């Protein structure tokens, strides 16, 4: 089996007495899009900064294509493109000049044709000669991605690439990530605290909480529709508990509390359940679905927090 394109072993980093990343290990395989998830302050950015050699780990190792990466081996970053937090650039220079500068830092031999190609790819054609200070946040993000991919790296590390963007900007970046993965074969590690966004692009998911990895699995496994949490608000004064207990819905772990029926099942069963409730004279005033992954994420991070409190 081929070695992972990127591997992290027991990565640990503290700032003063605060442990930002704690014994973190994971591996990124070629051709996949990894969603790197965690709440704000979970340690995502610190991890990504360590991957790019911006921050030095207290302990642990990073391997790029099977070789150990350190500050003296920065040439290994040739194969990686990254945006860490905001893609800040020189506002007094044009988008084209910024791209040219960062392209030259990545590889001396990048030709103007390649710069035109990536400008077009990220949708900045026609605006590349404008000063970056006149760019919107979305345009800066796209230029940041252009800078990250201009030297044709195999892997991209994108830290919160949709931060500060409007819904349209978020959709554009999402589509760009999907295109980079599917059409250009890039391996991507993308961090976010926006679960819905990651869910739409990731093939694999790593969740960290308080600097520690809490789960790592293929997205399909974590995002199974059967795990969708459905909440049904009922009108008061019904005898549903007894009805439910004796029905087939009990197998989905149905629970009732304060006129709220919660049940974990595939959303495709909702019409059937609604029909059943109506047939049994139970008045329904609202139905909401809590996204399966969101529920899973909240559950798993809360569990970790609770375990910490117990310790």
């Amino acid at each position, binding site marked *: 089996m081929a070695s992972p394109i990127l591997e992290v072993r027991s990565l640990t980093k503290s700032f003063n007495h605060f442990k930002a990343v704690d014994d973190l290990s994971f591996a990124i395989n070629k051709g996949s899009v990894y969603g790197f998830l965690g709440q704000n302050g979970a340690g995502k950015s610190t991890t990504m*900064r360590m991957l*790019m*050699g*911006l*921050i*030095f780990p207290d302990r642990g190792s990073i391997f790029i294509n099977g070789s150990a990466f350190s*500050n*003296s081996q*920065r*040439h*290994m*970053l*040739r194969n*990686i*493109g*990254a*945006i*860490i*937090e*905001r*893609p*800040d*650039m*020189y*506002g*007094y*220079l044009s988008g084209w*000049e910024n791209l040219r*500068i*960062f392209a*030259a*830092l*990545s590889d*001396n031999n990048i030709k103007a044709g390649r710069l035109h190609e990536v400008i077009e790819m990220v949708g900045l054609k026609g605006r590349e000669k404008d000063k970056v200070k006149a760019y919107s946040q979305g345009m800066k993000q796209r230029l*940041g991605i252009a*800078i*990250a991919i201009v030297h044709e790296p195999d892997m991209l590390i994108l830290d919160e690439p949709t931060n500060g963007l409007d819904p349209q900007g978020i959709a554009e970046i999402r589509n760009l990530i999907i295109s980079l993965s599917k059409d250009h074969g890039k391996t991507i590690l993308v961090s976010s605290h926006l679960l819905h966004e990651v869910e739409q692009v990731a093939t694999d998911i790593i969740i960290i909480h308080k600097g520690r990895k809490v789960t790592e699995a293929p997205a399909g496994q974590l995002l199974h529709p059967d795990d969708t949490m459905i909440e049904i608000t009922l009108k008061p004064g019904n005898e549903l508990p007894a009805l439910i207990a004796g029905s087939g819905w009990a197998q989905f772990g149905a629970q009732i509390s304060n006129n709220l029926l919660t049940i974990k099942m595939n959303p495709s069963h909702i019409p059937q359940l609604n029909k059943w409730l109506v047939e049994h004279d139970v008045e329904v005033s609202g139905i909401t679905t809590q996204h399966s992954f969101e529920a899973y994420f909240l559950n798993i991070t809360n569990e970790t927090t609770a375990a910490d409190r117990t310790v």
Partner: protein
Amino acid sequence: MKQLLQIELFKIFRRPRTYISFGIVTAITFVIQLAMLTDGKSYMSFALQGVNEQFDIHGNMINGYFITYIILQTLLIQIPLLVALVAGDTLAGEANLGTLRLILTKPISRNQLVLAKFGSSFIYTVLLVIWLAIVALGVSLLLFGRGDMVNIKSDTFILILQDDVLWRYGAAFCFAMLAMTTIASLSILLSVFADNSIGPIISTMGIVVVLTILSNLDLPLFNHIKPYIFTTHMIGWKGFFDDPIPYRQIGISSLVLVLYTVAFAAATMLIFNKKDIKS
């Protein structure tokens, strides 16, 4: 490395702030030249009042060489500030912009980046001193003409024949470049510790002002440390207008400045190589 240096120079000379320094040098020089053009004779008679009683001095004393010397004396504090304005911004300014983060995601070594920053700051410094030479010496010679140069010191009066002056200015400006690169190095070193450029610029000036005061204080306590302070040696350019020229002292001063520059650069690399980039 050459590419990195070109990029750094491109960034420096595309930024409006860079040209402020050249503008300030031009403005100060012009103000002094204008003042001397209108009031130079009374200034000269005041400066030579003790000397005139003992010597009969003839010729064009308020000439381009004399004016240039006055300009250089005046700009002793301003030029380091203008050097710090750009050098202090090299790393801290990038940290403040957030571009340092983006630069260091690229496959270049931190040492290469620091060396490119030093190289570009030195080139900027040298160009600033050359500009000073053009507007101070060149324009003064055009406005006031040539002549023997009078160097008035507190206890002596040195007259340098006009044919013997120009090379001394050449040497003095080269020495000034060396002294200013030491200031640039100090600014870059201080720049490593900060995430905005105001801190290193102000700190550089603070250090230069305090050490210049120490260098000029004639107190036994400070006399022992003066030879080791770089500001003591920064005024070594004045030696080229002495008679005889203290070549040995100028050599020692040059060496001290080079050593300080190398030490500041080495310290910058050492610290930058261990620094976590959190900006």
